[in-house]
């Protein structure tokens, strides 16, 4: 039996066939394909605020990309360009806190890394161009920013990535304070690009989008840790 990896989902008004702007739980297929290529069984977790019991049947948790986290979760007022979905936050924070407590393997992608940081007491930059003075983490709509990351020697992410340090980013927020996690990767501008929990079996957050290339270095490690 394959390890079961739960993927947190978006809820968006979606359009397909004869259906127009229907409220839909969805996840880009890249995430599903990346998990299945690694030998896992993907299931999609629609937001649910009641409890985290679904973790009982999961072997690993994949926190997907998505909208901004509600700034109240880290004690800030919303900035003008912050767009959040509180109902998704509620479901994901419930899951991630319980998963950390259970030491379930967790991979956080983009927003998912930010959820990990905030759930452990961290904070975010709400709009990176205001902080960094450039737009290289999201150059234009639909265009990924290409970077070379620097990883901390001996870290999980350094081991997984090996010699190929290229990453592609698409985000306008970033981790300011990683909470109880450790920052193990940064871009040339100093922004946190990877976080880990060294006291857990496998808790890794990356600010870039490994699912787009179905990067088996990361998804393989998640499924292996879950197996």
């Amino acid at each position: 039996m394959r390890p079961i990896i739960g993927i947190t989902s978006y809820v968006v008004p979606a359009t397909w066939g004869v259906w127009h702007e229907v409220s839909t739980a969805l996840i880009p297929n890249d995430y599903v394909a990346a998990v299945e290529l690694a030998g896992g069984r993907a299931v999609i977790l629609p937001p649910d605020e009641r409890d985290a019991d679904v973790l009982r049947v999961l072997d690993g948790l994949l926190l997907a990309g998505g909208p901004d986290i509600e700034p109240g979760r880290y004690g800030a007022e919303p900035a003008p360009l912050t767009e959040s979905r509180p109902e998704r936050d509620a479901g994901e924070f419930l899951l991630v806190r319980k998963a950390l407590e259970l030491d379930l393997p967790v991979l956080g992608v983009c927003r998912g890394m930010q959820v990990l940081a905030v759930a452990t007491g961290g904070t975010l930059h709400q709009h990176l161009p205001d902080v960094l003075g450039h737009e290289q983490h999201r150059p234009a709509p639909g265009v990924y920013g290409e970077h070379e990351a620097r990883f901390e020697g001996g870290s999980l992410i350094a081991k997984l990535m090996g010699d190929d340090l290229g990453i592609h980013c698409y985000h306008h927020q970033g981790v300011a304070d990683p909470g109880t996690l450790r920052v193990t990767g940064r871009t040339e501008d100093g922004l946190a690009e990877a976080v880990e929990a060294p006291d857990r079996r496998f808790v890794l957050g990356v600010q870039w989008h490994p699912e787009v290339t179905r990067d088996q270095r990361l998804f393989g490690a998640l499924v292996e840790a879950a197996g």
Partner: protein
Amino acid sequence: MRRPLIGMTAYAQQVQYSNNDLMAGMLPMTYVRAVHATGGRAVLITPDDPDIDVLDSLDGIVFSGGGDVDPAHWGAERHPATDTDAARDASEMMLMKAALDRDLPILGVCRGMQVMAVAGGGTLHQHLPDLTGNELHQAAAGTDPLAADAAAYGRHDVVIEPGSRAHDLLGPRLVVNSFHHQAVDDPGKFTPVGWCPDDRIVEIIESANHTFALGVQWHPERTADLRVFTALAEAAAERSGLARREFARR
């Protein structure tokens, strides 16, 4: 006490949202809300890599609406209006047969009822307007399909066989919404127990040999009448030895 975990078969569909146009694993939230409102916890089962191992984790399963079942599954030629999804067919036929084998509680909605019938050896009508000459089961004439919403659905009566399990659950008669152009012809090993009285199209199938295997041709998830979802949650809870107190009778 934990809630029953209800798997729901998902679409793998090219979809547009915000500025995106991409392939996604997805399901309308109406289905998710129907499960959560009746005491279950929904997880979506993507069709991408067909296997049945995921069933080991579930207390019940919903086979969702969607495109047409490929007539090759019951040995028929394809009608020009038939629009199929090979990946979903492959995955759902396998999951349906395995779920029936292990007596996992099953609810089939629209396409899901049709998958149930075909997996049980039955057949479908491929295009109802050819058969009935009416459009009771589809959106009203003049409806803009791109603006399809609840009000655009067809609406008709369903009469239910006295003595059936569906009759215990739903009573002798109800009014349903409807949005389909295929329908069950031969229900295979299932029992047809509900019909549209105007054209005798089968609207409900059930199994006497399973704990809970019910198929409905309409879309209860888009209505306030969630009795079939409540019944699934109860059957799933009972099968897995969960407390029943949370699942109050209608």
